[in-house]
């Protein structure tokens, strides 16, 4: 998922005619001050860090200023600071408006009904999760028909709006739906949507674009949302790679089997840290790439768990061995393979010096032992740990 920073989301809002406060982006305190002095952002104004994390208000990443001087101080205080691990490189300056009320509106996917869902609430400006169900109006949208008039009127009524503000709301909802639909969004959320004068204005913008639709939206390709640097690198190589913070690396083929592997390792007391999904591949070059990526994550041990279904286990084993030749792994390796020709696969791996098992629980225990073993001194290449290489009950 590609989360757009607020100002990028607001560029989309502008494109789809959703009203915004007058505002500009600045990358330095001097630039921020100049934008205000030149009258491009009217005072008083709000200065907001352009980071993806939530809770900016409480975290001091949103500030208010009444003079150009204060704007510079506020921008200085925010820019360059780390906010939940993310460095602030830009601030958004916007005029601070007198508002009558704050609303919540969003369009997202309802996985239960398998339809788009419009949500609206008169209790805006707070996390929607904290709003009781009866205060949220939910409207299912037929994706082939789109948002229709009566649905917009129903939302206006639920929010207690009529006349000018109701017409303004209908325009906002049209924009919201069109962004969801035409920009392939997973979520388009305005919270708060403020009632200002005779109309409505979007004070915040949360837009998440769907990864799988990026081929239609190359302009968002450079944004990695909240991927870690390694995850972003893996994505460029088309490898599914996820970091979750422990010290065991897991390489498996398929998302379900990967999750099951993490569960078994956790049960055995291990701390899985990264996982890499090989998918259906048995191409040694791709496996070698996987080893290289894994090395960068510096795992204490790597567990390869493969079910050889379409690809036979001996082919999988040969692929692994070839990959080890191309890119010798810089970590101890434990393998567990099951499926078609598993006996041959296990013995091939044993000959290559890899701890190999067919039993998942046994293999997981060996992995956790290696994780908890004292680390070898630097300079010594950790080879697959010694002892007789177990390959129990291979068929």
């Amino acid at each position, binding site marked *: *998922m590609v989360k757009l920073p607020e100002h990028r989301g607001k560029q989309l809002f502008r494109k789809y005619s959703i009203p915004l406060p007058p505002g500009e982006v600045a990358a330095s305190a001097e630039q921020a001050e100049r934008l205000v002095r030149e009258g491009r952002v009217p005072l008083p104004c709000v200065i907001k860090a352009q980071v993806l994390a939530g809770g900016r208000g409480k975290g001091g990443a949103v500030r208010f200023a009444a003079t150009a001087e204060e704007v510079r101080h506020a921008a200085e205080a925010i820019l360059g600071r780390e906010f939940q691990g993310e460095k602030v490189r830009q601030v958004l300056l916007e005029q601070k408006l007198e508002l009558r009320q704050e609303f919540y509106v969003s369009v997202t*996917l309802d*996985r*239960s009904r*398998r*339809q*788009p869902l419009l949500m609206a609430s008169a209790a805006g400006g707070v996390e929607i*999760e904290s709003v009781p169900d009866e205060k949220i109006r939910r409207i299912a949208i*037929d*994706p*082939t028909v789109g948002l229709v008039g009566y649905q917009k009127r129903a939302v206006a009524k639920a929010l207690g709006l009529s006349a000018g503000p109701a017409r303004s709301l209908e325009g906002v909802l049209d924009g919201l739906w069109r962004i969801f*639909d035409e920009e*392939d969004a*997973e979520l388009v959320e305005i919270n708060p949507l403020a009632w200002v004068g005779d109309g409505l204005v979007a004070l915040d913008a949360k837009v998440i674009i*769907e*990864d*799988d*639709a990026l*081929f*239609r939206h190359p302009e968002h390709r450079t944004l990695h949302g909240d991927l870690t640097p390694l995850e972003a690198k893996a994505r460029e190589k088309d490898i*599914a790679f*996820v970091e*979750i*913070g422990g010290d065991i690396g897991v390489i*498996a*083929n*398929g*998302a*379900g*089997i*990967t*999750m*099951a592997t*993490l*569960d*078994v*390792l*956790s*049960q055995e007391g291990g701390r*899985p840290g990264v*996982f890499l*999904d090989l998918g259906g591949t048995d191409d040694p070059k791709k496996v070698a790439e996987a080893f290289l990526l894994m090395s960068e994550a510096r795992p204490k041990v790597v567990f390869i768990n493969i*079910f050889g*279904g*379409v690809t036979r286990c001996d082919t999988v084993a040969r692929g692994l061995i070839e990959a080890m030749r191309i890119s010798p792994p810089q970590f101890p390796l434990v393998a567990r393979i*099951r*499926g*078609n020709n598993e006996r041959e696969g296990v013995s091939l791996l044993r000959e290559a010096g890899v701890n190999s098992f067919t039993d*998942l*629980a046994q293999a997981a225990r060996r992995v956790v032992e290696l994780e908890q073993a004292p680390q070898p001194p630097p300079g010594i290449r950790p080879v697959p740990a010694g002892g007789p290489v177990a390959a129990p009950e291979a068929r």
Partner: protein
Amino acid sequence: MSVLVGPDTRVLVQGITGHQGTNHTRNMKQFGTEVVSGVTPGKGGSVVEGVPVFDSVEEATQATQPNAACLFVPAPFAKDALIETVDAGIPLAVIVTEHIPFHDMLSMLSYARAHGARIIGPNCPGVATPGPERGAKVGIIPNMIFRPGPVGVVSRSGTLTYEIVNGLTEAGLGESTCIGLGGDPVPGTTFVEALEMFREDPQTKAVVLVGEIGGPAEEEAAEYIARSFHKPVVAYIAGRSAPPGKRMGHAGAIISRGRGTAESKVEALTRAGARVARFPYEIPALVQEVLKGAGSR
């Protein structure tokens, strides 16, 4: 007996001339499936694995009367291919392709429903029914893991499903039909719909349900089981150790805003009377247990 596919299934393969399309056409035929035609625009007139290739689904349908389609079409063209399948009157489409935008899938699903067609997938291994003489398979599930038996399998996973089916077979149990629903956020067929089919199938005496974190599908299945499914269910949920907010390899496998956790699913299924395995390898023994007790239910 079986659900969705059986001896009278006649498969059309869309994207048959691609690497995957060709290999899996061969595998489907080896399983015993009648693959009657293939479609690749511009490649009409050729023959792949003994199967005649046509330029369009309409031509293939007129010539070979398929009643199921298997789609190996790249994601950007999958919507087009599915609509073509539905318009030709083919009632079942298995979409193997992954990375189809869910926005496309929303309209594909809506279109299929309006025309009375069923989609399995996308991003799924498909459907397989092993047979005493010949089996029938639409998709990419490995052939070697099956034997005919009383267990219906329905799953959001791919490889994990193979491993579980293999375990059932090794334990001497065997399967009626295995349905891989796929790991995407908008599946064409849900657990509840699969359970509805297994309910009507006399061969299926017990169901293994393999779920994962993310989305409400397992909780909805639990509600359905409690309300109207009276065959025993053994369930497994992958992703208990998954941190919130991380997409665990499948587009649909994400705990978002605190919803879709493994705990919630395990609890709902347990409350509904399903036996929930902690690990995949516990499943065969649990199935043996519930089958023994099934007579008394």
